[in-house]
């Protein structure tokens, strides 16, 4: 089996993979967003599994969430209620948007899992004392995990986890850079599956797997035949769990060279300082990585970050891939569009309910956008 196949398989069937880990004797905790302190979970000897939910029917979730709730929250709740996540030991809810905040309550009140924790991150990233608050919050989470698992999480275990995650994140960054330099080296849908899988696979094995995968890619065996005249694009939004979207872009003469997604570069952005107090260092990364729109660093931080990513990677256009009913992203969009267009970076918006918009409509939209670049 190629290394790539491990990634594709995990991305395709995260729950099956998670159940396998559990069957092997490791407890599994689910989480929904990149603000979950995976390092602490991992150091407790627990497997952190990112939850992606389902895009199929959501019968069970529909009796807890109104129709105007985003498909991510709805889909994840569905898998918790319909038995798909039966193997799970519990879940961790970092505070982000209003929807997740209420999903956390609904989850706590309606699911049968053993462990549950809210990690109420600060919303402000612009105040020094918010860092102390986050450190204290992570310490609380650590204590809760310890009480549940019955064993202490010592600094040495945390240091090992930090090292593991730093290495894996670095390799993902390498992968992204490789693709940015040579966009034909592997298809966009495969890259998206690889990052997704990195939130599913056994983390101890992840750095090694990523190294081997990078070698496979370098060997040229996943080349797409794409030429250099493709339009270089960046995708921005919360998450994009639609591999077809990348193929569509490629068929229309474009190629995604970077992203600002919660299931993309925002998940591996930022490095944890391995020296000093580990929890402090973990907290610090959240202040240094690129923020999600549910956090406040400054009024213009996200626009500046997008513009600088676009510049660094020679991006010719940005596609905002937004989930319908996602408030934080929807609030930012008009300003980001204005800011980026003023810098001569064209922008387009694709709003996704659960499935992608009808193919004809989507193709026309993307085609027109790519053509005008």
């Amino acid at each position: 089996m190629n290394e790539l196949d491990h990634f594709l398989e995990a991305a395709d069937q995260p729950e099956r993979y998670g159940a396998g880990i559990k069957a092997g004797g490791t407890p599994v905790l689910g989480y929904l967003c990149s603000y979950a302190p995976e390092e602490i979970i991992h150091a407790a000897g627990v497997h952190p599994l990112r939850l992606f939910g389902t895009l199929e029917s959501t019968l069970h979730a529909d009796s807890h969430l109104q129709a105007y709730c985003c498909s991510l929250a709805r889909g994840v709740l569905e898998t918790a209620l319909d038995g798909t996540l039966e193997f799970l030991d519990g879940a961790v809810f970092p505070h982000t948007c209003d929807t997740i905040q209420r999903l956390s309550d609904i989850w706590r009140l309606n699911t049968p899992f053993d462990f549950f924790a809210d990690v109420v991150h600060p919303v402000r990233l612009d105040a020094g004392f918010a860092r102390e608050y986050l450190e204290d919050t992570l310490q609380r989470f650590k204590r809760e995990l310890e009480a549940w698992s019955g064993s202490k999480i010592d600094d040495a275990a945390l240091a090992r986890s930090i090292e593991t995650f730093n290495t894996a994140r670095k390799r993902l960054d390498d992968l992204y850079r490789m693709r940015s330099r040579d966009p034909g080296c592997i298809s966009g849908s495969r890259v998206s599956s690889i990052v997704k899988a990195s939130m599913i696979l056994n983390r101890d094995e992840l750095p090694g797997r990523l190294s081997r995968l990078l070698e496979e890619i370098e060997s040229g065996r996943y080349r797409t035949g794409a030429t250099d005249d493709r339009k270089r694009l960046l995708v921005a939004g919360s998450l994009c769990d639609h591999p077809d979207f990348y193929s569509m872009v490629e068929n229309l003469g474009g190629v995604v060279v970077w992203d600002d997604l919660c299931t993309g570069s925002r998940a591996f952005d930022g490095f944890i300082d391995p020296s000093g107090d580990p929890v402090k260092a973990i907290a610090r990364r959240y202040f240094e990585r690129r923020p999600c729109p549910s956090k406040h660093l400054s009024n213009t931080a996200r626009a500046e970050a997008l513009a600088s990513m676009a510049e660094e990677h020679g991006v010719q256009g940005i596609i905002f891939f937004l989930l319908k009913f996602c408030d934080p992203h929807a609030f930012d969009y008009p300003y980001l569009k204005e800011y980026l267009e003023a810098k001569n970076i064209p922008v387009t918006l694709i709003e996704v309910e659960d499935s992608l918009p009808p193919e004809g409509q989507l193709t026309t939209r993307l085609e027109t956008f790519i053509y005008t670049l």
Partner: protein
Amino acid sequence: MTDDKKTRGIQSPPIAMDAKMKEIMTGYYIEAKTAADSGKQVAWITSGGPVEPLIAMDIIPVYPENHGAMIGASKMGGALCEQAEAMGYSGDLCSYARSDIASSVTNGGPIGGLPRPDMLVACNNICGTVMKWYEVLARYFDVPLFIFDTPMCHTDYHEESKRYVKQQVLEYVAFLEQVTGKKLDYDRMDHVGKLSLEGQRYWQAVLDTAASRPSPLTAFDGFYHLALIVTLRGTQVAVDYYRDLLAEMKDRVAKGIGAVPNEHYRLLWDNLPIWYRLKWLSNKFAAHDAALVADTYNTAWCRSLRYIEDGNFLDSMAEGYTRMYLNIGVDQMADTIIEMAEKYSVDGLVMHSNRSCKPYSFGQYDIQRMVRERLGIPCLLIESHMVDERSFSEAQTETRIDAFMELIRNRA
């Protein structure tokens, strides 16, 4: 339905204080709109934000949410929301935010827009929307923004949250001192804190009178009289007003005057009002001899009473403002509703499933279930966007209200 039933229920004696409210609010908006002439600064602040330090520093607080309510009540929300959509804001966003953003740019709405802010204060104890919304305003007006971050208390108010919020109280005062170039007078702050508490106590007492049968006021009356506890909390004007309103309510109780003349059924309302349909809804229920005697929105401004200490306002407001109704878990919200349902002896629960407000609305299905299980009373769900009248379906709502009332009648 007989003719008699159609007409009755909509003619109880008006509340005398209505006129006074109008007068005070007019004066308040005139003062705010002419702030520049009188050399005063204006702060836009969220409805659940810590306003008392502003009052103590002579800054005029202006509430886009109160403005939103006026926009909704004058049925101008649809057009403004549409303008916001044309600016790129999704039609699924909070309609207060959409109408306010549009009116900031166009000076639209019933009073020709709000006075330009000198500063912005957003407290996320009600939602994350306000932070995103105020970021938009801060860029547009290019004025300083203070974000008061009150960590969500899903189950508890933790020590670390307490420290974090208290640090922000100090930082907030420093922010205001910097923007105004003045020092906060702590004696004055104490006084304002006292007035704030006094006003809240009177307002709660006013709402408490609804426990009498018949109830002298409905939640719909409350939505109108609420304006001062939002906008003028911490002033003598609000204290006097609610003291007088309380006297009037007590008098109505003594004389047996009900807000709904043939009050037969008593209901509890959840979520924000549907501002453009207040009268319609109120008449609709009254025609069924039903009075909405209590609600979760009007009381939200008194919730901090249990945490704020007399004589120690600035320090204890950290907890008061953090443990707001929307900043707690769904189960605690359900407990609150059940407590109120018992206190006001209600026969049913009417929930506004408000597309504008996810933190208020998600979880309603669960609350509904808990209420049914624990109290066995019927629940009704009405969906809308609170100030975007385009989202409201009259025919559907009417049918559902009729069916709901039928259910209640059959139980009685």
